[in-house]
């Protein structure tokens, strides 16, 4: 085979040699294609596998950790939560609407592949600044695409995050997370067990969409490839909705051994992964695969990434019943092969064998690369920028208004009002709070969901930034009264072959792992997205954490909105002069520099425990974590959410801007009725935590005094205008 052929598919000379060694012969074109996709970074985790081993993945409540389509966590009463996050960055950069839409479709399939009923979607987005028309086009398309797919499926998109920074201008990030609910007895894993069992393809017909690399010069392709093939797929949420219902009916009747969605690398990856997990082999006849287009080659059928398809291994004799259920839902279901006992993926076209490869060679024998890791040179420069002599702002009210209008802080309602966040009638708290809260019908319990990550912190110190992503996600859950149980992560980085990116990656995972240990939130799965670069410039290293928590009594949940006049405001935790990497520094001083705030994980765990304890004891009327924009923004957000102001009195030796806008971690702002004040303070004292009474709720303005001097007194109306109208105004340009 000409080196050009496999090189164009992304294989190196060494990898090709290794394939020859495994097979004991020269691979044919179809086989090279299968190896190329399975050994791609996306499927093979060539540059990340050893590092991902750092993640803690076990806890008594983890029913399924990494290695399956999605992770599973026990929530009691025989039920479990199934969840995973995935990136669709590059397709969304090319075709934002369809790229984002199919991203939702893909992650939802991972959930019902485990047998779970999907119940919610979350999204984590990163774009460049909104003054760029292309960014507005991207954001408009991405949000509409997520809305199009999720709304049509009848899945509420209940939470998410959107950040803007020039580092994402050429390479936006679109990460989608899906969550499902399952009776534990219904859990299915992606295993092709039972020699002789049928292998069935259910759902959409197979077309030429998404075949990697598009055009290759080869014998098999030459006659068929008149036109450049699209690499971006069009999503069909209607068909996916039917697919969900059909698959869940099939599970209910206990007709299958295992199933798997078809995402990247289509039939190739789903079939060999199912076989490898079960230690079996598989024989597939591509001639049996229903096509959308004529003249498709075996290569194209095996590599097509057509959406809305599932691979099922039914129990013996259940094929006809599976077909009947699918037919009822208007879907095709055909037997395309059998499970075999020899560990080989044998692909046929009619009677002719077109590929013969050990399943495990594709999945487990993918090469792993240890890249040299080097601390990037920019860090020394940025971390040591002297931030102690910044000019002090003259008007703090103006600064706060400016921060409230900053797109990273401003209301994201423009985004989430396009998402149906209420369908399924379980959304007790939708987008806009620290975490979404869903009730679990038939129980008194609730699920709390959030997705978090701060790329700027990670850029300035990936280890601390990684740890903060985990800590903040957990803190968000604690603020609604939930105990964090586990997380799924999406690791968005640049080119891992660059030592600096490899270093960032390693550091971030190390930091995340430390936080996972300390907060007892194991990793149950995730996704790695490398090569997020434009013209050689990488995005900020951006690990995104999707976390799930449990509220044992849904009546004892909490939100950020102040609800009662004369409640006492308590700040739990300590404010340090930490404005490195802060929104204040970026928006007011135009600087991305310094070190991100420090994180003491013991302190963090204690703060969260006190918050949960106080909420569970019914002592708290509102809780909100201090994040971007610091204490001042936290106060404003709680005020705006409840339509109620406050009088705040701070005493501190810090300069007011440090005090108000520092993003020190492990701080939570509580509102408690006067009668509960002493008990909450005592709870904090018991854990050795700083806790200060800083004011009380009152009126229709937010008045803050520092050491007796009024630093600002803003009406809710003024603040609301900046905060609510900023993004709509930018998008309307």
């Amino acid at each position: 085979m000409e080196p050009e052929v496999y090189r164009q598919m992304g294989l190196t000379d060494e990898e090709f040699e290794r394939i020859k060694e495994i097979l004991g012969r020269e691979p044919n074109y179809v086989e090279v294609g299968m190896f190329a996709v399975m050994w791609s970074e996306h499927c093979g985790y060539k540059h990340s596998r050893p590092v991902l081993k750092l993640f803690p993945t076990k806890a008594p409540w983890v029913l399924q950790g990494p290695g399956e389509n999605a992770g599973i966590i026990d929530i009691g009463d025989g039920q479990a939560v199934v969840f995973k996050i995935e990136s669709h960055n590059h397709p969304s950069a090319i075709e934002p609407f369809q790229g984002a839409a199919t991203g939702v479709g893909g992650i939802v399939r991972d959930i019902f592949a485990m047998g779970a009923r999907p119940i919610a979607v979350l999204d984590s987005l990163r774009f460049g600044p909104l003054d760029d028309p292309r960014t507005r086009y991207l954001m408009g398309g991405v949000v509409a695409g997520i809305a199009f797919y999720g709304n049509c499926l009848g899945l509420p998109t209940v939470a998410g995050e959107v950040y803007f920074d020039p580092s994402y201008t050429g390479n936006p990030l679109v990460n989608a997370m899906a969550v499902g609910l399952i009776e534990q007895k219904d859990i299915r894993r992606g295993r092709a067990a039972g020699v002789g069992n049928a292998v069935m393809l259910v759902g959409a017909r197979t077309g030429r969409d998404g075949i990697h690399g598009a055009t290759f010069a080869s014998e098999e392709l030459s006659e068929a490839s008149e036109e450049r093939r699209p690499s971006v797929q069009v999503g069909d949420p209607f068909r996916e909705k039917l697919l969900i219902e059909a698959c869940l009916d099939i599970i209910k009747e206990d007709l299958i051994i295992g199933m798997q969605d078809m995402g990247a690398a289509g039939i190739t990856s789903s079939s060999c992964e199912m076989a490898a997990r079960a230690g079996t082999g598989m024989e597939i006849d591509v001639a049996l695969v229903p096509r959308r287009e004529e003249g498709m080659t075996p290569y194209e059928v095996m590599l097509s990434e057509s959406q809305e398809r599932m691979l099922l291994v039914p129990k013996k004799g259940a094929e006809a019943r599976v077909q009947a259920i699918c037919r009822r839902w208007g879907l095709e279901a055909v037997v395309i092969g059998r499970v075999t006992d020899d560990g080989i993926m044998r692909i046929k076209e009619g009677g002719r064998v077109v590929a013969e490869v050990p399943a495990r060679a594709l999945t487990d024998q993918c090469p792993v690369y240890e890249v040299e890791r080097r601390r990037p040179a920019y860090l020394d420069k940025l971390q040591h920028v002297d931030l102690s002599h910044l000019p002090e702002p003259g008007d703090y009210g103006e600064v706060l208004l400016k921060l409230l209008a900053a797109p990273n802080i401003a209301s994201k309602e423009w985004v989430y009002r396009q998402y149906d966040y209420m369908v399924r009638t379980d959304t007790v708290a939708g987008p806009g709070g620290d975490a979404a809260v869903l009730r679990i019908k038939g129980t008194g319990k609730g699920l709390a969901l959030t997705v978090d990550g701060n790329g700027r912190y990670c850029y300035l110190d990936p280890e601390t930034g990684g740890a903060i992503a985990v800590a903040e996600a957990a803190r968000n859950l604690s603020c609604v009264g939930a105990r964090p149980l586990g997380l799924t992560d999406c690791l968005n980085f640049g080119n891992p072959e660059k030592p600096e990116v490899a270093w960032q990656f390693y550091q971030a995972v190390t930091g995340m792992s430390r936080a996972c240990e300390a907060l007892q939130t194991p990793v149950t799965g995730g996704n790695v997205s490398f090569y997020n670069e434009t013209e050689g410039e990488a995005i900020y290293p951006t690990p995104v954490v999707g976390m799930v928590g449990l509220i044992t009594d849904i009546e004892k949940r909490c939100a950020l909105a102040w609800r009662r006049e004369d409640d006492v405001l308590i700040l739990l935790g300590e404010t340090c002069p930490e404005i490195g990497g802060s929104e204040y520094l970026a928006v007011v001083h135009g600087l991305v520099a310094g070190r991100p705030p420090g994180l003491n994980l013991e302190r963090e765990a204690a703060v969260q425990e006190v918050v949960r304890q106080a909420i569970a004891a019914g002592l708290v009327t509102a809780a909100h974590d201090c994040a971007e924009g610091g204490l001042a923004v936290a106060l404003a957000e709680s005020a705006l959410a409840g339509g109620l102001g406050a009088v705040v009195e701070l005493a501190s030796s810090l300069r007011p801007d440090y005090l108000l806008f520092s993003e020190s971690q492990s701080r939570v702002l509580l509102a408690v009725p006067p009668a509960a004040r002493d008990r909450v303070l005592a709870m904090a004292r018991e854990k050795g935590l700083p806790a200060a009474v800083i004011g009380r709720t009152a009126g229709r303005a937010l008045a803050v005094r520092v050491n007796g001097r009024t630093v600002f007194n803003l009406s809710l109306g003024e603040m609301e205008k900046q905060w609510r109208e900023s993004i709509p105004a930018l998008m309307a340009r």
Partner: protein
Amino acid sequence: MKFGVIVFPGSNCDQDVYHVLGAVLGQPVDYLWHGDTDVAGYDCLVLPGGFSYGDYLRAGAIARFAPIMPAVIDFARSGGLVLGICNGFQILLEAGLLPGAMRRNDCLQFRCQWTYLRVENNATPFTNRFREGQVIRIPIAHGEGNYYADAATLAELEANRQIIFRYCAPDGEVTPAANPNGSVGNIAGIINREGNILGMMPHPERCAESLLGGTDGRELFASIVDWWQRGERLGA
């Protein structure tokens, strides 16, 4: 009183309505499959929200030809109670059971939000637990809820008091700012002339339990049950 919730391919609020009628109101309720052709034995049919057939051509356009629709149309024409919510409303329009048509929201985006509605007519099987002029709060979630009818049809709707809900401000004033989708006359829901077929874009099933932030929707379903239990029948 027995309810039937029709399941079209792509319906996605069927389970929500079923939950409210069954678990919240304690009424007997069944799912009815779009491929069936019989609705005998039911006292009220609900066409739920969702994206029947993907709403790919026009919302409700393909669903209107589902095998169950002739039976639904017969049921409705002979005075049976029919409630179409969101996509269900769109299907009723396409089927010609209610006048007018839906266009895309004037903002060209999907909108999910709470809305205030003014109850324009409470003398119906669906609204009798409300006061006339009462302002209620029910969420919407749709991309094609921009109701249109020509001037003659509108005049007729007005004259016959067929406009049941209008989007309004919290104080009940019907203003352009309170209109989330561009509907003519801020119309959010209409009834047929005989008064047994209600179509509305807002989702009452989403606000039937206080845990979800409101209970005005429960009153709408309870109105139907009350009306039935009082033994009232249309034209009687």
